[in-house]
């Protein structure tokens, strides 16, 4: 029996779980530089996670199983998505089991349980955060699916591995307007989904403006560590998803180790560039009023729809 596919899956999940904290650290370091502060170093998120894992778990008195179960589910779902999205190679044994729509649904499951957990302990902030998160989700998800469909129209499949293959074999791709619209829409949605600055500020616990932080306010110890880790993985996952759907050059198509090494290098470079892009957006923009979010995500939906229309009109 060939061990290569299994080795590949292990490598993929490792590339997600271990690279995600480093990626989060990289974004923080760049942000510190851009603001003229001294950075805590690339490994700070890893140190934070280690500290949290060592700490005791404190549960609220009326916390039910949902509250205790949610962190493991969120973390597991992120790992599963890491096994399906082509990060290093398209030759994944798990890839045929799930297409992009399933990946969007996986994110939705994680979000659903985080929102439930936020409401479970019955604090005001938890409920507020949950309601806001679901508002954002209800606007972001249709836009996300539209963007994905636009890409699928071009490559005539919803499987990410196949999309990567068809883009790598394609030509004149960057001059396709539908593609450009889909990229723009995807960037807006990814900012909203991962809770970055124009939508949510990941760095603060400012009571009235927080969205994601409000839901996980009651978590502690290893539960919090898992959720934070899953959050970093989500940021990395969205980057990988964007890279796979729009800029997949470098992802290994053939089965040899040299291609894998090359894919790893390409991945690191692209992640570094994505991090720089995030920092550029975050330092350039201010956080938006929450009632403006409908316009922000409406714009994302509009771009995705325009992409789809221009596929029919112009291509």
């Amino acid at each position, binding site marked *: 029996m060939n061990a290569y596919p299994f080795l590949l899956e292990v490598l993929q999940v490792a590339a997600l779980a271990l690279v995600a904290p480093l990626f989060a650290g990289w974004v923080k370091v760049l942000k510190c530089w851009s603001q003229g502060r001294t950075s805590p170093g690339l490994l700070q998120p890893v140190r934070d996670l280690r500290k949290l894992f060592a700490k005791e778990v404190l549960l609220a008195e009326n916390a039910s199983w949902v509250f205790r179960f949610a962190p493991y589910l969120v973390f597991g779902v992120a790992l599963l998505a890491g096994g399906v999205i082509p990060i290093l190679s398209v030759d994944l044994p798990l890839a045929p089991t799930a297409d992009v729509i399933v990946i969007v649904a996986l994110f939705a499951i994680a979000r659903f349980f985080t929102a439930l957990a936020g409401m479970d302990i019955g604090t005001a902030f938890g409920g507020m955060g949950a309601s806001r998160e679901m508002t954002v989700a209800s606007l972001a998800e249709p836009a996300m699916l539209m963007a994905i469909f636009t890409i699928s129209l071009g490559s005539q499949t919803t499987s990410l591995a196949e999309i990567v293959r068809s883009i790598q074999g394609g030509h*004149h791709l960057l*001059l*396709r*307007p*539908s593609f*450009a*619209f889909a990229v723009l829409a995807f960037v807006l949605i990814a900012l909203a989904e991962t809770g970055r600055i124009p939508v949510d500020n990941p760095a603060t616990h400012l009571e009235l403006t927080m969205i994601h932080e409000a839901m996980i306010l009651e978590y502690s110890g290893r539960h919090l560590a898992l959720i934070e880790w899953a959050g970093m993985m989500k940021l990395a996952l969205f980057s990988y998803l964007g890279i796979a759907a729009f800029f997949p050059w470098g992802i290994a198509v053939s089965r040899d180790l040299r291609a894998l090494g090359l894919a790893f290098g390409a991945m690191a470079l692209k992640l570094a560039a994505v991090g720089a892009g995030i920092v550029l957006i975050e330092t350039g923009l201010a956080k938006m009023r929450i009632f403006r979010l*409908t*316009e922000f995500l*409406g*714009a994302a939906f*509009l*771009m995705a*729809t*325009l992409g789809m*229309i*221009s596929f*029919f*009109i*112009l*291509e």
Partner: protein
Amino acid sequence: MDLELAARINGFLAALVLLTAFAMLAQRRMNGLIHLFAWQGLLLSVNAAIVGYAAARHHLYISSVLTLGLKVVLLPYILHALIRRLRIHKEIEVVVNIPTTMLIGIGLVIFSYQLTAPIRELSTMVTRSTLAVALATVLLGLLMMITRRHAVTQIVGFLALENGLFFAATSATYGMPLVVELGVALDVLIAAFIFGIFFFHIHATFESLDVEQMARLKEGD
């Protein structure tokens, strides 16, 4: 440059023109609106030059330069000067809220695609597919004139509508005859001056450029 590549660039520019049209619908600030209008003019100018080069219609170069001078430099400059002189910087009031306007806009794009589909089948030109976008730009300019209350915004909507017509002319027939284009350019310029004068009069009479105020002009209240 081969025709295939020119058609691709033309399609890409058409998408950008559509994007600026939508951005103008979503824009709340007067300054941003005028900047977007200038960008749209620049895209049109580049498009005219590329179509002119690919189809070897050299009079399109002249209309490209004309567009550049008029719609990218002169008209935005006049509009900027106007809003500075009349001290209008506040956010634009809209009749219909912005997400709804966007949805109507998407509907208009689909409608114009449907409408131009038969022409697309008949035409043999490389740029035929951008006709739908040109018609959509015209309709979006019209939508902007309808959904905004402010006189300056309505004028920008009118000019965007004219941009759509110019785009339709370059993509459907490789540009109008030079005489016609010169005439249109002169008309737009004269119109801009007349608008300017009217703005001053409206502003002097009502101390505002909100066209709702003009309902007071009715007799027998």
